């Protein structure tokens, strides 16, 4: 589906995937996370093909898909705690969790079951999970979807911090990511 594509990223860089509807942004992100098997091509991390040791690669990733991956019956805080433990982090630091929740203005909603949240509130909870994962690589599919103005600002701040800390990020988006020093990759065709 996607052909002839090649790019490299240095630490501290963000890559915005843009392109017409159906140009393959979502598909590319899933391929990078090894969720779909690309027909050809390779993904290298510091020169080593990541398919050789997928678990280590997965440990480096934080993922935000089109779907949030939150359990409606658990509260925001419970969802975050389970997500951390599933990543293998036995006892997440409470202070960090609170700071991340505060950044997305979710402190007041932390104990609400996720099913009672509106579209944008859920999206913010999922972004909090990405921040807490403390991963080297963020893969984000339309992170700005459904976010209101202040939440978009919060996301930009979080992303800038992540990059400043030496992380890198790849995000599919139709809107402007609004982070300084970002690079853009335009996928062609479809529409």
């Amino acid at each position, binding site marked *: 589906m996607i052909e002839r594509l090649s790019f490299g990223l240095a630490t501290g860089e963000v890559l915005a995937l843009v392109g017409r509807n159906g140009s393959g942004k979502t598909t590319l992100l899933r391929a990078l996370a090894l*969720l779909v098997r690309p027909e050809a091509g390779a993904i290298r991390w510091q020169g080593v093909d990541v398919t050789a040791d997928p678990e280590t690669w997965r440990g480096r990733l934080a993922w935000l898909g089109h779907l949030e991956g939150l359990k409606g019956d*658990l509260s925001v805080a419970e969802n975050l705690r389970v*997500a951390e433990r599933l990543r*293998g982090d036995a006892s997440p630091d409470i202070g960090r969790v609170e700071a991340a929740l505060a950044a997305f203005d979710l402190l007041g909603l932390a104990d609400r079951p996720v099913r009672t949240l509106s579209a944008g509130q859920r999206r913010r909870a999922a972004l909090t999970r990405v921040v807490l994962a403390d991963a080297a690589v963020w893969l984000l599919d339309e992170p700005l979807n459904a976010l209101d103005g202040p939440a978009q600002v919060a996301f930009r701040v979080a992303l800038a911090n992540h990059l400043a800390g030496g992380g890198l990020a790849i995000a599919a988006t139709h809107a402007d990511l609004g982070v300084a020093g970002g690079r853009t990759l335009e996928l062609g065709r479809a529409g």
Partner: protein
Amino acid sequence: MSGFAALVGRDLRLVWRRPGDVAVVLAFFVVATTLFPLGIGPEANVLARIAAGVLWCAALFSALLSLDRLFAADFEDGTLDLLLLAPWPLELAALAKCCAHWIVTGLPLAALAPVLGVAFGLGPEVLQALAVTLLVGTPTLSLIGGLAAALTLGARKSGALLALLALPLCVPTLIFGAGAIEALATGGDFGAHLAVLAALALVALATTPWAIAAALRQAGE
């Protein structure tokens, strides 16, 4: 192991939030069992004759009915992607899900079946045998059903498809489960049947987690 425990804990917690879900499965078990006398007629000797088979079949249906959401919920809300991306073996995650399922359905089914057996006029020894065979046999059902649930992820009409996939695989368990009770009644070797049931459970334990993990991976694609 922290991830395994976290996953079992999360699933149990989700069930704990909704105790009704387990109650519904058990209620289905009861209702389904009572349908057979209604279809077949109330003669006590016929009913006692078929009781073990009917109860085992009903337990099988109940376990399968409750399985169709085992992975589907995680699939639909995107949690499956997170499990796939977790840096520990997906096989363990598969096992954790089946384990949680058995705790909330297999265990109560085994406890409830003897009570229903009374309505079919079974004696105390047979009732006890019923509970024991179900206890040993239901883990196999959870594992095989889990495999079917994983295989049907993303397919529509997965309820019937799941049953179709799982039922033939569950036939050996059914035969030896119901057969053990039959053996008891006819003076056959109950212990041997039970040993086969246990062996089936071990085989399932040794093979299905890998198959489930493979199925989940391809469902994510």
